């Protein structure tokens, strides 16, 4: 991407900070919601080939629970909160206080709880990002899918699709305890949004 020709290191660092601040607040919100500590790994910011993005969550065919929403406003983009089915079950169990059904189907209540988690997390991610940048950013109503990661994530790549075969992904991993990945927060700003983010944060273009 041409925008990264100058000051690439600074720019990638700034985007890491974007992930840090956004996901940091989202992790705090999740921790409050579940009433237990939720840790966060250092955000990874990379240009990745489309195929490699689903590798981050177990591969194109891995079945994941995904909450997707569009970010609207000054710096639009796509946002995903992605969890594997087992941690999703644990989160629901913690939240609802009873065992989720054994089979793979989610009840209305569970789906609605997952949607609400997505809503709260995305809301706190974007609120902190908006405060940090002074940009107007608001989430659309979240939409939930339990399906193949590749099928889900391709939706977030369409804006990059017309420009090339890579997308810039801000990926923050949530951890429940030190070892296991609980979930991923993906923020994929539209290609046009980077300049606005950089300007807002005083990064020389």
């Amino acid at each position, binding site marked *: 991407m041409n925008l990264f020709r100058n000051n690439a290191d600074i720019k990638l660092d700034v985007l890491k900070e974007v992930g840090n601040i956004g996901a940091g607040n989202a992790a705090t919100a999740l921790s409050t919601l579940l009433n237990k500590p939720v840790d966060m790994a250092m955000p990874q910011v990379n240009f990745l080939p489309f195929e490699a993005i689903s590798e981050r969550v177990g591969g194109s065919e891995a079945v994941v629970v995904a909450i997707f929403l569009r970010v609207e406003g000054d710096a639009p983009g796509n946002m995903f909160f992605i969890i594997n089915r087992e941690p999703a079950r644990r989160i629901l169990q913690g939240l609802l206080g009873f065992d989720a059904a054994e089979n793979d189907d989610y009840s209305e209540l569970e789906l609605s709880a997952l949607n609400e988690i997505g809503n709260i997390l995305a809301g706190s991610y974007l609120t902190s990002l908006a405060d940090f940048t002074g940009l107007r950013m608001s989430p659309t*109503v979240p939409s939930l899918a339990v399906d193949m990661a590749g099928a*889900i994530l391709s939706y977030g790549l369409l804006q990059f699709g017309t420009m090339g075969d890579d997308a810039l992904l801000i990926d923050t991993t949530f951890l429940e305890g030190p070892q296991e990945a609980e979930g991923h927060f993906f923020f994929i700003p539209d290609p046009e949004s980077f300049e606005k983010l950089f300007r807002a944060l005083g990064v020389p273009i």
Partner: protein
Amino acid sequence: MMEGVLIKVGMADLNIADEGAVLKTTGLGSCVGLTLYDPRLRLAGMAHIMLPSSDIAREGQLNIAKYADTAITELLLRMKNKGAITERLIAKMAGGAQMFAFMGGSDTMRIGPRNVEASKLVLKQLAIPLLSEDTGGNYGRTIELSSQTGMLSIRSVQFGVKEI
């Protein structure tokens, strides 16, 4: 002999196979998996189409496998180079789902149906009959096309495996 060899077709990618090899692409959501088959040569082709038209491309070097118009034309060309004849070819397709339902439904959100429509239009222009399809819905699909039989097998999380 390449009997049963699996050839993976990535996202915005295309390939052809013969001698019993199987073409596979995974995790089709709004993307369309379009296949062509020449039964006489037992020659198969598959494209993983991401966007409906190369008119919207803003990339410097066009990835022709990404867009319905350029991908199908290129696939046809590659198969012809292997001896296929347009009149013998049959097409099948799967995918083009709308994974997420949104109020209003902007153009981007309708990308699945648009990919399907665009692919059908190109096939019509090239006079290649569409034998069968499994498109639409709100779920992901993984597909495999056997160059031995021309059978397209479609797997989804909800509905298991079906063949068209």
